[in-house]
């Protein structure tokens, strides 16, 4: 596996543990997952705290209001529960006092034989039935401790009694029934009215005169049972445990309030400190006044009948009080339920509550954030591995494992990554291959270069190229081994510097060369000059010397280096060529001038002969003479054409926009005027303009249209078309006629001088026209092609 070292710091695990831990931590906190989760948690925290702060400011007072209101509702609700409990007992005692066994007992007691006169049930049976009812009541109400039916007669003897002892319902019969005629409540109850229900004070239960422990506060409910004559027969009493209801009152207090139940005497029945309750039963009183000397009496606080007083603020206390009457007949008998709070507590409680809400919210936010972080971390794991893989790939390790993931985007990413790795691998291979190829090519190149160097050395020697270096500052010249032979000097005789060289140069060339070397040395010019050198041993020589600039890193000229070539023979050849060319020109002149003169003579005297000796010459002689005259004219034409052909090569080309349509029209006019009798239809496309040499263009059109004119002479009407066609995106000019055409088999001879494809004597031609056209088009860089069929006209396609 080829590794491409791309440089940069080593990103792999380093040996330094501290650095590793630190960088790990940095990597962690800079990871995408951590950042996302942090941002999320941070956002939640900020929002939560912001809302809480706002809420805290705005809602602090209304919290107090809420708390007080809820305290009031508590007190009201608890007081109502207490009253409902009392009502419940009043109802029960009423129900019990009116059950059939009571009436039965009354009837049976009134009867002398102790038997109910209505249904012959005896007294004992009625008592038993009442006992059953008592038992049922005790079963259904857990607060009830004892139910009794006490007779007024026989010193207040209990007639029926049922009670709960140690959690069991027991009935008391016979001798176990007690006489209660001495008890205060019995004596007090003797004047009870029929509609009256008497509720006792709530006191601690005593067994045999001793307070029962644990303390068992009791309430006694009593209703009179009256005989048919209206006299008091006895009482139904319910002894109920008050512990549960008092506990409920206590429980109704909030965390910042305290519940108190105070009797008319100011003694506590309920106090946050249980030791302070029922003190009056235990020998040491604890009163409201003692605890709250600065507050009004409990009775004063709870003024009102059954309706909880609105909250009261006294000092730093908030108080909610409710008076609960125990007896309807005795307005004085009541207990007072008071809930008391301190303002500071309420405020603290409100603050605590807000703080708690804030705390909880924050905790939830943190928990949520953590969850998100964990989830994101899981989510990011493939991404992290992907990035590690990317780093590994960056280090050239293409064998890394890429994570699998079910997250769609990541899966796409991973797939793309796999593709990339595959591509890189492929490219690596290709690169390696091409590297090898390049190495091989380099090697070949180097070999070739060496060979080339050798060849160059051989070549310079063979061709006669000398190498020279000029130091620009000193003007010193270094010559290679070949230089003396080029200069025709001994090695020792070679000029050592520029001044020395100039002395060898022909005086006519010297100033020019000096200026050029000067320019090369000091003005940054390349040096190139052809000059003659004067030597003693080999006559005049032409040398072509060139030198390029060799510069240092800053572009400063350090050396002029180049070659010197002996161009004497080329010069001589060029000179000879020039002489030949001039000779050719004068030859052309001579042809034009001198060769035509004899032709004129031939024609002129032939004409004179037929003219002046018409009488003596017969027709045959005249025919011969005419042939001579015509031949002379034809040769004149031939000479003109040859001259035109040679002139094509000499004429200088100057391009400009040329209106071919106009030129063609002029040519046709000329042709028409030469043969006015012919019937020729000429069609010239308008606006055929090209950029070309106007003279050449005229020569081309003259010849092509002239040919078309000439070779269609047998047709009537002859048709000639000059237009333009498009072929493969290029516009091509076309001259077409409907003349005799030519055989394509000889098409290759069309453009050769003196080649005529027609033997028809009626059509005159020198065979030079198309050669001229071809040469002119060649000079213009154009092309020409012909298409024809014998008897069907010819078409010439060409570009200028």
């Amino acid at each position, binding site marked *: 596996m080829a590794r491409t070292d791309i440089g940069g710091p080593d990103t792999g695990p380093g040996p330094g543990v501290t650095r590793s831990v630190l960088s790990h931590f940095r990597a962690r906190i800079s990871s995408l997952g951590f950042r996302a989760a942090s941002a999320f948690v941070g956002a939640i925290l900020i929002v939560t705290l912001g809302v809480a702060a706002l809420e805290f400011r705005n809602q602090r007072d209304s919290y107090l209001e809420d708390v007080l209101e809820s305290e009031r509702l508590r007190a009201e609700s608890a007081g109502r529960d207490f009253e409902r409990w009392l009502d419940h007992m009043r109802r029960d005692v009423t129900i019990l006092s009116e059950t059939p066994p009571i009436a039965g007992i009354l009837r049976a007691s009134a009867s002398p034989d102790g038997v109910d006169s209505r249904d012959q049930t005896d007294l004992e049976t009625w008592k038993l039935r009442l006992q059953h009812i008592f038992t049922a009541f005790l079963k259904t109400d857990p607060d009830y401790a004892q139910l009794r039916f006490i007779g007024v007669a026989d010193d207040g003897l209990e007639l029926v009694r049922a009670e709960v002892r140690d959690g069991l319902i027991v009935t008391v019969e016979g001798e176990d029934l007690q006489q209660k005629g001495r008890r205060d409540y019995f004596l007090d109850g003797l004047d009870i009215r029929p509609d009256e229900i008497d509720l006792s004070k709530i006191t601690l239960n005593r067994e045999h005169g001793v307070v029962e422990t644990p303390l068992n506060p009791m309430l006694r409910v009593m209703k009179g049972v009256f005989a048919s004559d209206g006299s008091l027969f006895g009482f139904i009493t319910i002894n109920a445990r008050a512990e549960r209801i008092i506990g409920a009152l206590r429980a109704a207090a909030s965390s910042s309030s305290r519940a108190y139940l105070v009797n008319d005497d100011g003694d506590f029945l309920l106090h946050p400190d249980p030791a302070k309750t029922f003190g009056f039963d235990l020998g040491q009183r604890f009163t409201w006044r003692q605890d709250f000397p600065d507050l009004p009496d409990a009775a004063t606080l709870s003024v009102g009948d059954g309706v909880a007083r609105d909250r009261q603020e006294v000092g730093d206390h908030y108080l909610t009080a409710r008076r609960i009457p125990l007896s309807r007949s005795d307005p004085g008998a009541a207990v007072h339920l008071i809930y008391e709070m301190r303002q500071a507590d309420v405020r603290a409680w409100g603050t605590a509550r807000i703080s708690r809400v804030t705390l909880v919210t924050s905790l939830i936010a943190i928990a949520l954030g953590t969850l998100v972080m964990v989830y994101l971390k899981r989510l990011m794991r493939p991404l992290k591995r992907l990035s590690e893989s990317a780093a590994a790939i960056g280090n050239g390790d293409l064998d890394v494992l890429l994570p699998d993931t079910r997250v769609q985007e990541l899966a796409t990413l991973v797939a793309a990554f796999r593709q990339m790795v595959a591509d890189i691998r492929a490219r690596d291979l290709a690169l390696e291959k091409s590297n090898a190829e390049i190495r091989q090519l380099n090697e070949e190149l180097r070999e070739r270069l060496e060979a080339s160097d050798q060849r160059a050395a051989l070549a310079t020697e063979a061709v006669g190229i000398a190498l020279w270096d000029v130091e620009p500052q000193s003007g010193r010249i270094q010559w290679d081994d070949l230089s003396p032979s080029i200069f025709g000097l001994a090695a020792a005789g070679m000029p050592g510097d520029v001044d020395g060289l100039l002395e060898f140069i022909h005086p006519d060339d010297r100033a020019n060369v000096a200026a050029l070397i000067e320019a090369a040395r000091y003005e940054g010019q390349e040096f190139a000059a052809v000059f003659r050198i004067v030597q003693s041993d080999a006559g005049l020589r032409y040398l072509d010397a060139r030198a390029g600039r060799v510069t240092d890193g800053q572009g400063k000229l350090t050396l002029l280096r180049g070659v010197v070539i002996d161009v004497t023979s080329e010069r001589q050849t060029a000179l000879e060529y020039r002489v030949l060319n001039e000779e050719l020109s004068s030859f052309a002149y001579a042809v034009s*001038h001198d060769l035509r*003169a004899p032709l004129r003579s031939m024609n002129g005297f032939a004409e004179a002969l037929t003219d002046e000796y018409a009488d003596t010459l017969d027709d045959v002689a005249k025919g011969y003479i005419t042939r001579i005259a015509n031949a002379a004219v034809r040769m004149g034409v031939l000479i003109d054409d040859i001259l035109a052909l040679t002139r094509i090569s000499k004429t200088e080309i100057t391009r400009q926009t040329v209106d071919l349509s106009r030129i063609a029209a002029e040519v046709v006019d000329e042709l028409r005027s030469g043969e006015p009798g012919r019937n020729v239809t000429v069609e010239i496309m308008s606006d055929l303009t090209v950029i070309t040499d106007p003279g050449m263009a005229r020569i081309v059109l003259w010849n092509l249209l002239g040919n078309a004119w000439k070779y269609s002479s047998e047709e009537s009407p002859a048709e000639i078309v000059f237009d333009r066609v498009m072929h493969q995106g290029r516009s091509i000019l076309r001259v077409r006629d409907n003349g005799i055409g030519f055989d394509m088999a000889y098409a290759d001879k069309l453009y050769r001088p003196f080649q005529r494809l027609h033997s028809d004597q009626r059509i005159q031609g020198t065979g030079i026209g198309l050669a001229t056209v071809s040469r002119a088009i060649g000079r213009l860089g154009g092309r020409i092609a012909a298409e024809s069929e014998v008897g069907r006209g010819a078409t010439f396609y060409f570009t200028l």
Partner: protein
Amino acid sequence: MTAIKPILLVEDNDDDEVLCLRALKTANLKNDIVIARDGAEAIDMLFGAGRPGPPGGLPFALILLDLGLPKISGLDVLKRIQEDDVIRRIPVVVMTSSNLDEDKITSYDLGANSFVRKPVAFGEFSEKVAHLGLYWLLINEMPD
């Protein structure tokens, strides 16, 4: 009406001379024709001893000048003519075989009044000479 002045024909080629005279005759011109066979002779007839007519005026009505001449070329003769303030007033028609633009341009630059190429076909030549005579000798007006 002054006397009809002669035409100077400068022509070295005998054949051309004959043909030219024939053509001039065909054109029915009344002028005498003086012939110079080379450039030197032409100059002598224009400026030297061979000069015809009274001194001071123009010696010829028209000069028909060939260019390719022995001794002194036609162009040099033309140049010499131009250098003379009087002689230059004589119309000079260059008649030559040459068709070269250079010759035409030089001729005109040196003051030639016409440039006529001698065609091979005599008929054509004859026609041209007739036209020339008609124009330069009959239509055109000259100072004495």
